[in-house]
Each structure stands twice: as C-alpha cells, then as structure tokens.
C-alpha cells in the first residue's frame, strides 16, 4: 500500500510539470499526446527505405530534406494490430534523447488531430495494470478532456535510445 502511495505522490509531483501544449494523434481508437516542444514537424507518408537487421517496428529510413532519419511504426511498437496506411497516415518527426545527443526520429501514426492546451487539473498519473502487458513506463500520464481520455506519451522512453536500446544488438 505504502508503495502505491509513494508512487502516486511521485506521480502527482510530475503532473505539475506536465501541463502545457500537446499534439494529439490517433492510433486506432486511442488518442495519444506528445509535448509540442518535442515535435519537429509532421510530414505525409513518403517512401521508406528498409534497413535490414532491425526490429520489426523499425520501418526503415527516410530522406528528411537531406538528412537520413529512422522511422518506426508506433502501432507495431505497441504490438497493436497493423492497419493499412491511408492518406491520413503521417509521420511525426520528434526529437528524442539519443546516446549522446538529441536525434530525430519519425513515427508513423494513423492520423494527427489537434494541438491542445492541457492544464494541470486534467492530468492524472498513469494507472497501473497487472502483469507487464502494458509498459506504463512509456506514459507520462493520462489527461481527461471533455470526457475523453488521452494518453501522454513519453517519447524519450518509447523511441529514444533507452527505449529501443542499441539496434545493433537485435
């Protein structure tokens, strides 16, 4: 019990810092948010060059105006059912922590919806689920807005170097 309490109070503390502007996007029926400051740009789907010997969710690399950046499929990363790419499918280019410096990574999502200002009162720490079916580490918290729940994604954890480890090891 004590554990849960301390976890929650730690969560509460974090919540304060979480208020701010978020970009929201959809994966299936779920809505996710990422801090707007992390987002570099949103681009339409483009041709992706597959890179061998990488995890399944790494779709490959793209040419982002002259730089080569990796792209991953967020559905695939979350072990969700794959979905055909449509014209609403897009790549959100985010800046995440790499091994030594910030790096750009693209993530494929079903569609982007809007930019929201989320206030402190709307944010709750992520719930705990039994077992390890859901890695709550990947989430900063949940936001309840107009009766809908949005999941705040910790991009550094999900697709940063710490989340993916060294791809070479795969």
């Amino acid at each position, binding site marked *: 019990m004590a554990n849960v309490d301390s976890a929650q109070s730690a969560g509460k503390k974090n919540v304060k810092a979480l208020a701010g502007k978020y970009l929201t996007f959809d994966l299936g029926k779920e809505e996710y948010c990422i801090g707007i400051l992390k987002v570099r740009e949103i681009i339409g789907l483009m*041709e992706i*060059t*597959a*890179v*061998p*010997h*990488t995890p399944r969710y*790494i779709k*490959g*690399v*793209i*040419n982002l*105006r*002259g*730089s*080569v*950046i*990796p792209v991953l499929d967020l559905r695939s990363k979350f072990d969700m059912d794959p979905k055909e790419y449509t014209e609403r499918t897009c790549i959100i280019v985010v800046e*995440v922590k*790499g*091994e030594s410096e910030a*790096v*750009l*990574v693209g993530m494929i999502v079903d569609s982007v919806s809007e930019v929201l200002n989320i206030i402190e009162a709307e944010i709750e720490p992520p719930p705990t689920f039994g077992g390890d079916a859901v890695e709550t580490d990947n989430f900063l918290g949940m936001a309840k807005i107009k009766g809908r729940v949005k999941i705040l994604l910790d991009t550094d954890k999900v697709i940063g*170097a710490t989340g*993916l480890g*060294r*791809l*070479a090891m795969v």
Partner: protein
Amino acid sequence: MVGAEQSVNGLLDDMAVKIMMIEPGDLSSVGELLEVLEQLTAHEDMASQAVLQRMACAFQAALQDLIMAELPDTAESYQQLAECISRMQEVKRNRDDQRAVAAFCSHLHSIGCRIDPAGLVAGQQGAAGAAGRDDNNDPAFLRDRELLECFIDEAGEYLASIEANVLELEKEPGNSEAVNAIFRAFHTIKGIAGSVSLPEISSLAHAVENLLDEVRSGRISMDADVIELVLAVDDSLKLMVAHVQDVSEHGVAYQPAPIDGQLALISSLLGGKCGSSRPAPDEASMPAKAPAGEEPPPSPPAAAGVPDFMKDSDLLSGFISEAFEHLETIELNVLELEQNPNDQEIINNIFRPFHTIKGVSGFLNLMTINRLAHATENLLDDVRNGKLAMNSGIIDIVLGVGDFLRTMIQNLSDVLEKGQEYYQQYDINDFLARIKICQEGSGAGLAEEPVQVVAAAPPVQETWAPRPAADPPAGEPPAPAMKTVEAGVAAAGPPQKKNIDAAIKVDINKLDGLVNAVGELVIMQTMVRHNPLIASLSDPKLNKDFSQLTRITTELQKTAMSMRMVPIRQTFQKMTRLVRDLSKKTGKLVNLVMDGEETEIDRNMVDSIYDPLVHMIRNSVDHGVQIPGERRKRGKPEAGTVRLSAYQKGGNIIIEIADDGEGLNTEKIRNKALERGLIQPGGSYSDHEINNLIFLPGFSTADKITDVSGRGVGMDVVKKGVEKLRGRVELQSTAGEGSLFLMHLPLTLAIIDGIVVGVGAERYIIPTIAIRESMRPKMENYNTVQGKGETLLVRDSLLPIIRLYHVFGVADACTDIGQGIAVVVENEGRQRALLVDELLGKQEVVIKSLGGYMKDIKGVAGGTILGDGRVGLILDLAGLISVSEEMGPGHLNRLNAIQE
C-alpha cells in the same frame, strides 16, 4: 595599478638596476626590462614629457631588436644601453637636455641602432623612426607586418570574447571563470601589443589586467562600475585596433589614441576600492612572472614537486596545446637545420618557440619544463651568437629535449584530463648535463664569463657578417634599404613561409553541414532537371539556364569540398624525423625525398594516414634499404633513397613510397608462407600473389625482431588502415632494385564512388573500390558444396556466393543465379560473389549516417540520398561477409523449402 604608484623616476631607477644585472644571453631579463619600460611609456606623467617618451620608445625598439637578435647580444650592448638609461634620467631631471639626448643617440648608434637626435627633440610623429630602419617615419608597429596582421586578427577575437564574457558576468557576477577568461584575454592582448610596439594598447590592457587581478583575488568586487569600465576599455581597444589596421592597410597616419582618461579611471577604481594600505600592486602582479626569469640551474627539481599549476586549468590547457604546436615547429626546423646548419633564420625559428615555452611554463610554475627549455634556449643562443658551432650533437640534444618536453607535456595533459595521480616527476638532469657539456666543450664556458666575451668578439662579428643590415657602421643610408629588400625576398621566396591572409576559424560541424547541403543541392538539381515534365520541354533558354546552374553548383561543391582539404605536407614532414631516427638506429644512410607535398587531402584523413605511412616508411628503411657496405657491393650509392610522393589521379589521391633497396625476397616469403600453411605446396602462385602475402596479419620474414620492425604487424596495419579509409594498397617490387608501395585513397571521406545495384525494390550502393568485376554467372560455373554452400568459379578461383536478398531479407528479388548479376567484391583479401538483380549505374554518393541510433547495423556502412530522393543504403562489405557467415549457408535449404 602600477604606473600610478611608482613615479617616472622610480621606474627609471628600476630600469637602471635591472640593466646592470642583465648578462648576455639572458633574454628573459631583457623581457622584464621591457615590462618596466612598458609601464614607463604608459605612465600618465609621461604624456607631458614628449622627449622622454620618444626616448623611451626608441629604447624600447632597441631592446626589441636585441631580443629579435637584430642587435648583438653582448655585454658591450648592455653597457651602452645602461648609459642610455642614465641619459634618460638626466633628461627627466633637466627637461629637454639637448646634450643628454645627443649622448643617448650616440650610445644607441654605437651598438648599431640608427637614431635621429633631431627627431627625438623635434618630436616627429611616433618615436619609431628612431629605431632607424624605416626612412619614411612609419610607426614602429609597421615593421613586422606579418606579426601585425596576426595581432589585428587575434586582438579582434580576444576583444570580442571579452565583450561576451563581460556580458555573461553581468548576468552572473560570481562567475570566476568569466573573470579569468577576461583576464587572460587582456593579458594576451597586452603581450602581443607589446611585442608589435603598440604601447598605448599594451598599457591600457595592462592596466585593466591589473584591475581584474584585484577582482580575481577578491580585493575588488565586480560591480557595475568595473563592468562598465571593462566594456569601455574593450570598446576603445577595438577602436584602436581598427585604427592600427587602417594604418597598416591604407597607410592612414597613425595617431596614438588618448588613453589617459581611462587609465586614470582604472587607477581611481583601484585606489578607491581597496585603500592605500594594500601591498604594492606591482608585487601582486609580478610574482607569477618572476620564475620565468629565475636562473635555472642548479636548484634541485624538488621545487617543482606539487602540481600547483593545476590551479588554472584553462591556462594550462592553452599552454599544452600551444606547446605541442611549438614543439612541432621546433622539430621541423631542427630537421631543416640539419640540412643548412648555418642558417641563422632557422636557428631563430627554433629559439623562439623554446623561449615561448620557457616563458609560459615559468608563468604556470612548471619549473621542470621551464628549466629544460631555458637551458636549451641558452644553448641555442650560444649557437646563434657563434659561440658554439652547430653540430649533430647539438641537433640531437635539441631533438631529444623536444621529445622529452613532449612527453612531459603529454603527461600534463593526462593530469588535466584524468586527475592528479597521473602527475609524474621527470628527471631532466641528464639533459641539463648534456647541454652543459656541449656548452663547455666547444664554447669553453663563454656564457658564464663576460670578460671572455670581449675576447671572443671577432668570431661573433663574423657570424653576423652575412646579415648586411645588422653589421655595417650605423648611419649609412643604404643599410635599411637592403634590409627591406632582404625581408621582402624572404617573405616572397621560400614557400613554407605562408602569407597570413584574412582567415576565420569555423566549427568543423558547420563546415560538414555546408558540404552536406551542397551535396543535396547537386542532387536536387539533377532531380529537377530529370523531372519528366521539365525534360520534355525543349526551350533553349531553359537548357542554357540549366547548364549555367550546373556550372554554379559544381563550382560551389568544389569550393565547399576544398574548405576541408589540407596539404599533405605536414604529414610528410613528420616522416623526415622518422627516417632520420631510423637511419641512425639501423646504421643505414637514407635520404628521404618528398614530392607533391602540396597535394591536398581531406583533413579528416590526415590522422588516419599517419600510421600506415609510418609503417611503410619503417618497412622501407628497415627491410628495403641495405647497409652502406652492402649497397657498395651492388654498385649502388651508399645512401639509399626513400621517395615519398603524393599526387592526384582521377578521383583518388595516390601516395607512393618507393625505395631503391633490396626489394621483396619472394623466395623467402614463399618459404615462410609454406611453413605457416598459407599456401599449398606445389600450388602455382605468381610472384605478385606471393608478395602480397606480406599484408597478412602476423606475417614477417624477419629473422629477428628488432625494435624497428619484424613482428609482422606493420603491413597488416597499413592494409587495415587504408581500407578503413576506403582506399587500397598496391605493391610492386623488383628483387634487388627496390620496392614501391602505392596507397590509393579517396579524395574525401564524405563522398564515395559507388555502383548502385537493385535487389527487388531496394537499391544498394557498393563502394567501387571494393568491386573487382561483375558478370552474369554461367550455370556451369555454379557449384554447391554438400548441397548447401554455393560457389561460383571466377577465373580459376571458387568464390562463395552471398545472396544479398537473403542476407537483407528482401522480398521479390531474383532468386535464380542465372538471371541475376554476380558482383565480385573483395574485403580484407576475401573475395565473394554478391548476387544482385541488376546494376543500375555508377554514382558519386554523399555518405550520411543513418541517423538516430541506427549506427552499427552490420552490413550497412551508411545511407545516401539517391537521385530520385530516396535513401539508398551503402554496403559495408566486412560486415556483410561476417553476417553471411553467421547466417550460414542456408540459401539452398530455404530455396528448397520454397520450391516444395
């Protein structure tokens, strides 16, 4: 502030005492004297005493000439200079004492300094003309334009950094790092300004430096007043430097800026804030410098025990990096000196860096380094003054000292990075003793006894004779003219004297960014041009514009690339030293001849070609060139020749290392290879193939391992190193005549020549340098081993097949050997046949990292943007081969499974 506390009389007295104590050859004391003089010229009371001020400037010029060895550094000179000081004291007492001024001039005359008494009294603009070499009364600082340009360049940088740091400090007043940075910048400006004879700038910087020193030691707080003042000084220094630049570039008349106001402000701040009870400020600023002038021997090294130099790590790291540069200069010049032992200019070039190292190390309290450098400096000074003849012994000592200093400084840098426990005490007594023996041996202890110097005067004169301007009786008008001519020739003549053009330092990342962006531009341009819609237009204007655009982008690309290129000269010159040491060690006579040092290579490659070069040179000297006796028997000149040349051929830089020695002993290599089971007995191998075995790791035919070579590591290192740069090594050898190594290196690391191949829908780039050939395989050459391992027979050798689509998991690729293309690639001596669908063409591609964390993917060296804007992967053959080996010969099993 020094000037305010000490009167002009006090300073003059101080100078009089100092000059009495100077002994010939002790240039550091002259430096101290110059400092006092600087204070004098900057003194506020001096403004009203124009004559004295001009005398001081003339005196200063004379001292500087002395340091630069333009005037003889003898007891006689110092005596005359001491007289000059007495005359200045007289002038101070009786204002404008004409006789004293005349006497002053004649004293300077007597040591070879031309001076115009009328000019001193009448007050022509600047006292510089008094030094006598510029007929047109140019300000003193114009004498050495190269130095001046350097100063203007650097001062600008320092002033900008001061401003930035002050602003930082304003935000964060307690930031001692910023104070230190500002202090250092002013200190440097002071130093250089002094050396180019800009007394106003120097004294203003000096005053601020004193102020900041007080701030640093906490006696004055860094408040708004101080910040305001520092900024104001910074601004006026900027103006002054700009004015100096105008003077030097556009010939504007020089007008010394009034600095008294600011000096007074500074002294009021100094006086007001810390009260008059504080200790004499000059003592506060001097002790750090005192060790530099301290007589080096014979105090035991214990004095240097505690690494208290760690206190200011920034200063120290600056010292370390500069010292390394100086040591490099020393080495280069010593080697040059070996060729021309009597070239005074080269000796000076060696002397100066030692002098600098000595000074800075003394300042940092690195006494071991300081003493060693000082002793060497003295030795060189004796050589310079003709007391000692340059011989190989001295050259060895100087080189040895250079190496030893490098070790010590390297150690310092380790200490700085890793912590104090790495600090090591070095014993320099051996060197000091050797230097002493050298000095006494041939110089008969002249340095110690000034009495004998007089006796030794004639030889001194003789050595000076070749420098016409320094010696002839003073007052002759042609002398200065000759001097200028000589200087002009010197500046234009030898190619190693670089003109200092306006240059800026650029962050290498920005440069890489530019190169990349230009690469993209070129690709985009091709894309636009080949856009079907545009390609279908047949407008002559459009075509013309396109070709113009192409020309511009090509030019832009060339320029961008050239910014990263540096001449290979420096790398080559390091080899000179190596050959020299090797030939000493092996007792062989070797001449190193160098060609094409101006050939440029990518600066990122400079470090990487050093090791391979060292090994190849070692190999040539140790195994190639024979000992003199042996060479005589063969009818060759006793001294062997190693030729190092570089040139550009096609898209490659080629470096050749040729020797006229023994050549490879193919028989010996064959036997060794048989012994080690590297070749089959009875197999037929060409000599060329056998010779190339020396590139295998651990292969050596040397009967005994020397400390030069023989462990069989060398050639392997060469091959690996060169291949890492995407180059290759070739070997040609004729028994008895010599051998030739050719290193083919790409022009730049950023771009490679590649063949684009298609596999299914994917495009891959194979580096051209690795490709041997490509063909459509014939089924009769196709064999399987145990029904699994596939091989292809290509020119009598069986090559394992790598199916690229299999290794990379590409769908829809051509799986039929007979329908695909086999590309024969070689990596580290291993050949493989890569099966691909088709060859799509040759292309120069800009290498890019795959970004993010996708760095170490086996088989992929990087990515590039192809002509259509897609990303193509560049194959890394070493990785690819090892991946295919790990995966095992699974191709057929899988194929069978599919067929079933």
